[in-house]
């Protein structure tokens, strides 16, 4: 089947790509555009490692077809820092040692950013349930939750 021509915006930049109808947005990001910050942990929406924002909604890129991104705005981990300035969440993840192997980290950061944009003052429980779709096997989540709560507090102050 012929490939589709898709016009989209990724991290603020206009991007065009060709993709087969069955290719997921994650396949496109990783293997067509080489934006490999979004990870494939399961390809079934169970691990959250491919979390991206699609028109302002948090989604798993593995559960979106590449063609569905037509006319949409996509934000990935690669767009989170501004120049050499890390997003407060990125800084807090480092300060709190909220990553060990780091493969789930991009997904957690994108998901946590979506939370704080919606709810600048989440409780620990709200953070935990919002992030329940992001699996981490290394940290036991403790330091991740602390980093998100700390980043939220800092962002509220500034």
């Amino acid at each position, binding site marked *: 089947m012929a490939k589709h021509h898709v016009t989209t915006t990724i991290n603020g930049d206009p991007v065009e790509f060709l993709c087969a109808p069955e290719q997921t947005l994650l396949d496109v990001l990783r293997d067509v555009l080489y934006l490999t910050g979004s990870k494939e942990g399961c390809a079934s929406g169970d691990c959250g490692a491919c979390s991206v924002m699609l028109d302002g*909604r948090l989604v798993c890129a593995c559960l979106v077809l590449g063609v569905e991104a037509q006319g949409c705005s996509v934000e990935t981990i690669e767009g989170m820092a501004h120049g050499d300035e890390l997003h407060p969440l990125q800084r807090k993840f480092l300060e709190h040692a909220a990553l060990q192997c780091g493969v789930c980290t991009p997904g957690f950061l994108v998901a946590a950013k979506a939370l704080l944009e919606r709810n600048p003052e989440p409780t620990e429980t709200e953070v935990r349930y919002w992030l329940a779709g992001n699996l981490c096997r290394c940290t036991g989540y403790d330091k991740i939750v602390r980093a998100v709560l700390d980043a939220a507090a800092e962002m509220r102050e500034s």
Partner: protein
Amino acid sequence: MDYRSPSSVKKAVDLLAAHDGAAHVLAGGTDLLVKLRAGFVEPKLVVDVKGIAQLRAIESDARGFRIGAAASCAEIGEHAALVAAWPGVVEALRLIGSTQIQGRATLGGNLCNASPAADSVPALIAAGALCRVAGPSGEREVPIERIVTGPGRTSLARGEFLVGFRLEKPRPRSGDAYLRLIPRTEMDIAVVGVGVALTLDAAGVCTHARVGLGAVAPTPLLVAEAARALIGSRVDDKALAALAAAASAACKPIDDKRGTIAYRVKVAGVLARRAARIALARAAGR
């Protein structure tokens, strides 16, 4: 496989009709993409219905609510009037998967995937939701409990697809609730799901009730006996015990990787009782 994104119900009907069963409707994609990846389905055409404005809309008027079949759970969960009117329905659809899944998953997809364990369906059954179905011979309205006919099977005819749902405005002193049992706190498929909707009279006697069960039979169930256990009672302990017994008795589950027959039967009663208590508190509060 090809992909099309029609802009109207008519165009979608035509595409589905032209492919005579080899086309698959794509709404949120959270089930379909997993099946595609695993090779469980190999459609010739995927018809993305999210491009049809009517299927994305959530509307309310004096009579009630119209929810497009392709509106995402996240969008529905943000509709304040719906949340206030049907908290049980909303808590059920909010349990479908993670935050990420919520951003894509739809009520239409959750129903038409025809899993016995779909979270939103028992709650929508309890709420008395009606489904609007479009097809080559026009549109029809069907009670939700008549859509799913077996695991992975629906009563939709070839070329038909789900356009949306209609929920009545709740009567005064009504409340609904949905509870499910999963081994973890999130991310699991329901082992048992129970939706309860009930209405009280001014004296606190239950005048109307509907009970929906999920994951305990080949299809989600509307359990009339369970509702009868509540109607005419003050939803007291005795009525709740009868409700639990009726809910358990209605179960025709299987042993599988998610739970045993005995477990599902027992927990269906437990959750029915707990859900009814929440629905009662909500009804009493209005």
